[in-house]
Structures are given as structure tokens and as C-alpha cells.
């Protein structure tokens, strides 16, 4: 029964914390209330194994050893210095930052862990308010299906294998990666790790992983370099956003205010019998500019550069196809 089990486990922790001698399983069976319920030796050992696993999963440091040389079985104890959280004395502004940080995650894996951390800090005497008077409520989500298995693999130090879709050329290939970390950058999640096939560090976008993530081999084999800065690695791998490209656009008269507010009028021109202006615009993020321009439909036409005109055209042809029309 769940309640009896919780009671037994609390008593086990208190017992092992209070002893300096290693206590054998038999001794524990005799002392700690609840174990006498076990009718047979086998039932007891099963019960005890399960309890040890649960405590270890919670992070309780169980020490195994023998109190004296002539002991012939291993015993257990909990070293207080390894069990107890050290002193944490947070100023009010620091506690406010912690409260805000704990609310950052919108993720089944990380929300629970942050909540667990908060409970322990409160138990250490830190007052962490529920209501933090701040202007800001940042949120980070982990909705990608590949996130939970990759996070687990990173934390366990396990090699992973997955099918990965590349855009140019379009292909799906199986990749084997020693994962170093998962990184959220500009609203997207990435995996950073050593790509065994390329024999080099690589960065993978989680949204391009096709199907399941599979683990390969045993935990604890991934050797992450000490000096790697995950976030910087992803930033560097992204196409540079520094390059500013100037484009020339035709914009229908009084239309597309969203474009006009970012551009300069450099002339007038009639196109397709419609009055309009010629605008010059600096595009800081050329990769997303085409999508943005395509959104304005017939109100905006790219005059130059040719490559942007072509990309916008591809978007529009794609939109036609997406609406079920064969171009």
C-alpha cells in the first residue's frame, strides 16, 4: 500500500541517517517498521531492493560498506554531509529571481524538476514567493517529440541514433551522435554533440528529426569536452544575421504599411496598371524576409535582388500548392 510504503521509506531514511555503523539488510529488516510485513526472505529482499532504487532515484546517497573487517556482509548508511543541502541564504531580490526561474519552464520534464528544487530551497529556509512583482513572465516550452528522449540521453551520457532530414539536398539520413546538450535558441530546440559519422561536433534542429530517437549502447560513455559552450555553439552554427542586404521593392500606393514603415521611398512606378512606389529596404534577416514579403501578396513585388525575387516566387507557388492548386 502506498501509505505504508511512504512511512517505511521515511523511517528507513531516518534510520540510515542516524547510524554511523553500516547496517546490514537483515538488521534493517529487524529495525525499520514495515519490513516485518514481508512473509518470506524473498519478499523482503524484493521490497528492500525496490526501496533502495526509489531512494537512489530521489538522489539519496546510500553508502555501502562494512563497519569492521570481520563483517561478512555489506551494510548501508547515509552520510549526513552527502545527504544535506548546504546553507542557502538568498536576499529578497535573489529569491525573486529564483521564483521567476522556476516558472520559466513549460515542459513536463523540466517543470517538475524545477518545482522539486524549489521545495528543497523552501525547506532550507529560503522564502520564495509565489507572487513575484516583476513585469516579466518568460516561458520556455519543450513540445518537440524528440526533446524528452534527447534530454534523458544527455543526462545519462548515452549515444543516440535518429533519422535526420536535410533541406539541401533533400534527404533523410540516420545520424549517430554523442549528445552534449540540448539548447533552446530563438524559440527553437537544438541538439549539440559529436556526430560519429562526420567525426566532428554538429548541431541538429529537433524539428528535423524524423521518427523516434533510439539509444545506442550503455549509459555514461559520452565524453563531453569541458570547454564547450552549448549556446555559443548553436549561435555560431546559425546562418549569420549580421549581413544586411538592401532590396528594391515595388509597393502598391498606400498599401503594405508593414513594409513601408521599414523602408525608404526612392521613386514611383506603375506596374500591371497599378500606381505604386519604389522602395529601398535593408533586410537584416534575409532568411525570413522572403516569407514576410510574400505575405503581402500582390501589393509588394521584389525588383531586386534576383535571388530574393526568386525565393518569394517559390513561397507563392508553394502557397498555391498548399491551397490545393497545381501551379
Amino acid at each position, binding site marked *: 500500500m502506498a501509505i505504508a510504503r*511512504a*512511512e517505511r*521509506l521515511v*523511517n528507513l*531514511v*531516518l534510520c540510515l541517517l*542516524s547510524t554511523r555503523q553500516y547496517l546490514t539488510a537483515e538488521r534493517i529488516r529487524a529495525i525499520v*517498521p514495515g519490513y516485518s510485513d514481508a512473509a518470506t526472505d524473498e519478499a523482503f529482499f524484493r521490497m528492500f531492493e525496490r526501496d533502495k532504487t526509489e531512494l537512489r532515484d530521489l538522489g*539519496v546517497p546510500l553508502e555501502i560498506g562494512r563497519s569492521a573487517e570481520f563483517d561478512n556482509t555489506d551494510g548501508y548508511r547515509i552520510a549526513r554531509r*552527502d*545527504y*544535506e*543541502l*548546504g546553507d542557502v541564504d*538568498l536576499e529578497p*531580490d535573489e529569491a*525573486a*529571481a529564483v521564483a*521567476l*526561474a*522556476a516558472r*520559466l519552464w513549460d515542459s513536463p520534464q523540466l517543470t517538475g*524538476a*524545477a518545482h*522539486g*528544487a524549489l*521545495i528543497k530551497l523552501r*525547506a*532550507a529556509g529560503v522564502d520564495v514567493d509565489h507572487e513575484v512583482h*516583476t*513585469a516579466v*513572465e518568460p*516561458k520556455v*516550452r519543450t*513540445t518537440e517529440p524528440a526533446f524528452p528522449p534527447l534530454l534523458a540521453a544527455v*543526462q545519462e551520457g548515452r549515444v543516440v541514433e535518429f533519422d535526420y532530414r536535410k533541406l539541401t539536398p533533400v534527404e533523410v539520413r540516420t545520424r549517430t551522435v554523442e549528445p552534449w*546538450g540540448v*539548447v*533552446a535558441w*530563438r524559440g527553437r530546440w537544438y541538439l549539440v554533440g559529436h556526430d560519429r559519422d562526420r567525426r566532428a561536433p554538429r548541431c541538429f534542429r529537433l*524539428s*528535423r*528529426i524524423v521518427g523516434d530517437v533510439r539509444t545506442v549502447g550503455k549509459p555514461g560513455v559520452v565524453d*563531453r569536452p569541458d570547454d564547450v559552450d552549448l*549556446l555559443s555553439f548553436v549561435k555560431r552554427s546559425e546562418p549569420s544575421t549580421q549581413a544586411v542586404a538592401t532590396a528594391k521593392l515595388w509597393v502598391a500606393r498606400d498599401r503594405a*504599411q*508593414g513594409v513601408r514603415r521599414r523602408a525608404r521611398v526612392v521613386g514611383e512606378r506603375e506596374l500591371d496598371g497599378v500606381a505604386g512606389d519604389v522602395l529601398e529596404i535593408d533586410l537584416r534577416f534575409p532568411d525570413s524576409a522572403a516569407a514576410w*514579403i*510574400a505575405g503581402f*501578396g*500582390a501589393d509588394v*513585388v521584389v525588383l531586386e535582388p534576383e535571388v530574393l525575387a526568386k525565393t518569394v516566387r517559390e*513561397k*507563392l*507557388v508553394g*502557397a*498555391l500548392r*498548399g*491551397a490545393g492548386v497545381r*501551379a
Partner: protein
Amino acid sequence: MNASADRLPRLLALVPYLLARPGIPIEEAAADFEVTPRQLRKDLELLWMCGLPGYGPGDLIDLSFEGDTVTVTFDAGMSRPLRLTAAEATALLVALRALAETPGVVDKDAVQRAVAKIEAAVGQAQPAGVAVGLAMREAPETAVVRDAVSDGVRRGRALRLHYYTPSRDEVTDRVVDPMRMLLVEGRSYLEAWCRLADDVRLFRLDRIDGVQVLDEPAAPPPHATPTDTSEGLFRPDPSQRTAVLVLEPDARWVAEYYPVDGLTELEEGRARVLMRYADTAWMVRLLLGLGGEVHVEQPADLVEEVARQADAALRRADHLPAT
């Protein structure tokens, strides 16, 4: 996490928690552990049965209740909480570091002090396998706007905004009474009472084309209440329409970015979603820009409008002399 898996960590934390707060109301303790007062009382009853070997009256955890408050009178050696697990430390420290790197969120200095203290308390600092950069792309103009807006918020002054509204694709002038600034999912907003709309509005900083701090004080009416951000910034509006979209893997961010209801996984990493939208013109612009990455299934008039506008845009571009 299920209830029983949560319970043991809570039981281990409760005694030190109460020890640090003698005479705390049970209701307050329950709120801190995010359980009902009833559940907390059950936990206390269980702890009362636990203690040190011998398990006599002087060996058991002892609690004294007075009215609705509780005090620990004997802790049975459980005076400190268990150390943070690697996963707990990671979840908290990564979030703190992300906040420290984001401008205008919290006092960076306070965050860094908190990180240092928690790292010290946690013990061996191991590299976290998670990193988060909250910052979004921000143009230099937006940084200038941010400074002026925060100045107005800090000094409690009304602001005149030159503001771009994408749903109507227009730029309007309005005077607003600032309430606070927000950062939600990597975007910065000014929340203010808008005298033009006669209501509370959120203004995205990157859509403010001009801002002037006025001499008059900010005076939002007493009934102006801040937006509850816990359920996301934009709540479902009964007048909204719903589109059925099939997202290619590369357009899956749409489901994270916009209000999406159901998500059905399809083969090859694609997903079918129901997306709510208030304004057809805005939705058409989004879909034109997503060209090829999204297949629009419903409603029929939206499908038609996307096709019509894409076709018109392609025809117009064809009028350009070939280069």
C-alpha cells in the same frame, strides 16, 4: 509526475521546512508545497508515526498543533533538506542563466548572485546538458524604443505611440497610460491603458515606430486590470475562426508560436493542427509566407483566398520586364 511519486520528496522536505518556520499556518505550508491543506494534514499525520529506531515516545517526530498552525518540536535528525538532484539543479540553474542573459527581465546582478549561491549549496558543479537563450532577434530601433518606454513606465508618464497593427496593416497614433512591461516567449511588450481603444492593450515593442514620453502622469483607470499571462497572452475569443492546417516538419514551429488546439501526428514528422485566428487578412499573410510548408485544408474561403492572392501576386510579378 503522479501523486505518490511526489509524496516522498515532499515528506522528506516537510520537517526541515516546518523547522525553519515555527507556528506556520497549515494553509500557507500547503500553498508552498502546492497541495491541499487536507493532503498536508495527512502528510503530517504520517510523519508523526515516523522516527528513530526504538520508536518510543521520545524517538518519533513530534509536532505541536495550535489552532491552524503547526510547529516541529522534535525533528528526529531530519533538520536539513536533501540535496538537489542533478536534474533539479539543471532545471533551476539553466533557467536562472537564461534570465540573466535577457535584457530588462530581472536584475542581472541578483540573478548572478543567486546562481553562485545555489551552485555553492548544490556542491559539485557539473556541466548542465541544457542551455537556453531567451533573446529574440531585435533591431537597433527596438532598443531605442525600449529605453523610452521603460523611462515612461519608471517615471509613470503617459506615452504617445506611433504603432503598427499587423492585423489591419496600418500605423496609428495613440496616447497610452503605461502599466508594465512584459517578456513573453521571447518577445517584449508594453501593457498599457489605450485611450484610443478605451481598454487595456499589449503593444509589441518592435511594432512601436515612434514613442514620446509626455509630461502628463500615467493614469490608467482603476478598473484597468493586468493581463493574466499564465495561460498565454492571447485567450480564445469566441468570435475567432479555426483553420485546419497540415504542417510540414519545418513549419512545426507554427504550432508552438500561435494558438493551436489539437495536434495530430502524421507520417514523416508532419502534423495536423487546428489554429485559431481572429483576422482573415492576417492569416492569409501568414500562409502566403509559409508557402509550401503548410497545406490549408479548411475553411474553404480561407483556402480560396490564399490561392487567389498567391495567384494575383505571381501574375503581377510576371509583368516585370525579364532581366
